[in-house]
């Protein structure tokens, strides 16, 4: 007879999944040495950026259930912070990235505090409006952002004097950042904090009755998400070396949201797959030339009609027991 704990572990499926993950990791480490064209490498790096953006939005929208249409705002704040600090004060990437992420998190906190009492359409328009405000400020505050001229000449990152501004350097840098994001978000989601997020999504009133301070947790989800979006923005700025407000429009927020929904709200592997598909899709559709964006719209619609829960659907969160089973429980299983 299976014990209660065996039920929890689901061993067989877990092992095969582990093997797949290990193979995927091994293969991905070889990528920069496969003599791929710069174009493909560039594509992969962009996928990495969108994995970070998608996962962070998924935390807010997929796990905590709060629809945000303004995620690009935090991406922009991270990118501009990094760009300004590195071009004017010659700070290194690692400092500017931290500053960018923290400033984005701070704005996430500021926006979240008064607005997360709002629901549905109200929250959607406020996040959207915030995103527009950030873009318009970036466009008009010439002294700080140079407005539509953008900020050129953002230096490539380096560490201990090693220049990371090469394809291999950028690849491993985004690889580490994306992996760190995946692990962090995974661990948050599979913890007391994450369960509080999901409980709020499932039934806010019941969550409150369980003692969850729903406003505090929603603000927390927003702040964490903004932090990672800011981090992605910082990397982006140092990667493309030139940013302007055009990169952070409402379309960008929609692109990130589409990744989350296409992959499956509340699914971490889903977001990774979603980023892969939506970042590369326009390239695959490039042969359609002018029809490209028309097709993109059609694909979104068809996707939603055929699989509204996304490719993966929400994945089960895992609670893992770490110690050996205590005698009481194994006895029970043996009965």
């Amino acid at each position, binding site marked *: 007879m299976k014990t209660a704990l065996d039920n929890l572990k689901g061993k067989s499926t877990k092992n095969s999944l582990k093997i797949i993950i290990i193979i995927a990791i091994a293969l991905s480490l070889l990528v920069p040495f496969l003599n791929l064209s710069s174009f493909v490498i560039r594509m992969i790096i962009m996928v990495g950026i969108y994995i970070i953006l998608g996962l962070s939005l998924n935390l807010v929208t997929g796990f905590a259930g709060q629809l945000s249409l303004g995620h690009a705002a935090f991406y922009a704040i991270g990118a501009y912070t990094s760009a300004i600090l590195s071009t004017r004060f010659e700070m290194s990437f690692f400092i500017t990235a931290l500053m960018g992420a923290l400033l984005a998190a701070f704005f996430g906190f500021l926006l979240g505090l008064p607005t997360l009492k709002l629901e549905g359409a109200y929250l959607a328009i406020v996040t959207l409006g915030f995103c527009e405000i950030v873009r318009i400020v970036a466009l008009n505050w010439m002294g700080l952002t140079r407005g539509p001229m953008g900020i050129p000449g953002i230096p490539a990152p380096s560490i201990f004097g090693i220049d990371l501004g090469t394809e291999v350097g950028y690849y491993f840098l985004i690889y580490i950042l994306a992996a760190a994001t995946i692990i962090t978000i995974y661990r948050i989601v599979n913890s007391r904090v994450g369960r509080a997020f999901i409980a709020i999504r499932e*039934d806010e009133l019941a969550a409150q*009755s369980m003692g969850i301070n729903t406003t505090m947790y929603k603000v927390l989800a927003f702040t964490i998400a903004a932090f990672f979006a800011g981090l992605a923005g910082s990397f982006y700025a140092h990667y493309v070396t030139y940013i302007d407000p055009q990169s952070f429009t409402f379309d960008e927020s929609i692109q990130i949201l589409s990744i989350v929904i296409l992959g499956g709200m509340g699914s971490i592997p889903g977001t990774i797959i979603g980023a892969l598909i939506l970042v590369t899709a326009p390239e695959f559709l490039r042969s359609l030339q002018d029809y490209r964006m028309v097709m993109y719209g059609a694909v979104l619609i068809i996707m939603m009609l055929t699989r509204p829960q996304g490719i993966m659907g929400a994945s089960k969160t895992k609670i893992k027991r770490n110690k050996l089973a205590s005698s009481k429980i194994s006895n029970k299983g043996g009965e």
Partner: protein
Amino acid sequence: MSLLQVNNLTKRFGGLVAVDSVDLVVNKSEIVSIIGPNGAGKTTFFNMLTGIYEPTTGSIKFDGKNIEGISPEKVIDIGMARTFQNIRLFSNMTVLENVIVGMHTRTSNGLLHSILRTKKFKHEEDGCIDKAIELLSTVNLDSKLDEYAKNLAYGEQRRLEIVRALASDPKLILLDEPAAGMNPQETHELMEYIRKLKQMGFTVLLIEHDMKLVMNISDRIYVLDHGAKIAEGTPTEIQNNKSVIEAYLGKGA
């Protein structure tokens, strides 16, 4: 010794008086029931106790402290946990997770411990799992730990909701029509279970329509009608109370 003491509690919605100056006392280790026809104000009464509605007037004293107008998330913290009339589980969470969310206020793992998977994190998680399994085994749900709550049968969902409330180690547990929609067999099991809760040292306040259940397990009963208390007493006293019979069957019965 009284655990919960409600004085003169009133709730008005506009011109409608949903609950009209109700007094009520629950002593430690008692099972107290509130009965009354539909629309008598029972659930509104519960909602005031648990902070979902703010009382218009009146006082609620729990465990020696005045708590009227408290916010809902604080209620469980001070030792009062509830279930809902129309089951409110976290449908897309597993049975085990539902129970562990119930332990939210009794646990403390924050962001840092969760991200770093510290010893404290693991220790607390393990403790939660063990405790949850133990609680679930009392309602025979320990074989369905990894099942989504939405996939459980109706009676199982009711039981899970009770266990989720118990997970917070409450001093008082409020059950809002726990037998609603249950078949006689399930109701019987529920009755036994509520008795067992009393033996385990819990205090129970319940709203229920099933008279057999109420009369069998209650130490004392309060009867509400049109928002006002019309009777209180032991099951035998209530069964013979004239105004109660009138409220249920109409005048002239």
